[in-house]
């Protein structure tokens, strides 16, 4: 069952990468990267249990903290003027049809 959960998390990570590449706006990409980081935490924990080395949980804790800090940092950076044009352009492109 551990291996089945690992495969399910791999599938979810692949779907998140597809959305991160194809996402129309910046926020979709940030959302996909955030989900990818959370799935990485779960994957490291499961791999630690599969390989019989539960010391990997320390790396999982560090990964969770890094993921949180990176998402908050990118979102703080997205309040600047260069990023504000991106959603409005896409919004106007979606309005046309």
């Amino acid at each position, binding site marked *: 069952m551990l291996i089945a*959960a690992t495969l399910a*998390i791999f599938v979810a990570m692949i779907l998140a990468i597809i959305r991160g590449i194809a996402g129309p706006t910046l926020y979709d990409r940030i959302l996909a990267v955030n989900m990818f980081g959370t799935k990485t935490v779960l994957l490291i924990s499961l791999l630690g*249990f599969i390989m019989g080395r539960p010391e990997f949980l320390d790396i999982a804790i560090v990964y*969770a903290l890094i993921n949180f800090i990176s*998402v908050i940092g990118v979102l703080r950076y997205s309040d600047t003027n260069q990023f504000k044009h991106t959603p409005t352009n896409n919004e106007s492109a979606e309005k046309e049809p």
Partner: protein
Amino acid sequence: MDITITISSGFFLLIGSFLCVSGGIGLLRFPDFYTRMHAVGVTDTLGAGMILIGLMILSTDFLVFAKLVMVLLLTLLIGPTTSHVLAKAAFHNGLMPKGLNTLEQNNNKETNSSNP
């Protein structure tokens, strides 16, 4: 006793992996940013919590159990905070929900047609 531990942890891991895959499909298939955020929120809190509870049942050492509790608490704190900040930033920077655009367009059409 051993088979009880195996079955209960397998049950939690199964529910958690199902929620993770459904969250990934929702992230890929939903039409809007805010609805995608709903799918990711479900996956981040409930799926991760179920998988971590399943690992907690499997763990034999107390230190491993304590680390898993720490990862679970971090996940439960980080996921809603990130969702809130993401939605707030997207809404402040002018990303409207999909149905709201059509509503605004309809209202504009009605006002434009009624004004002249």
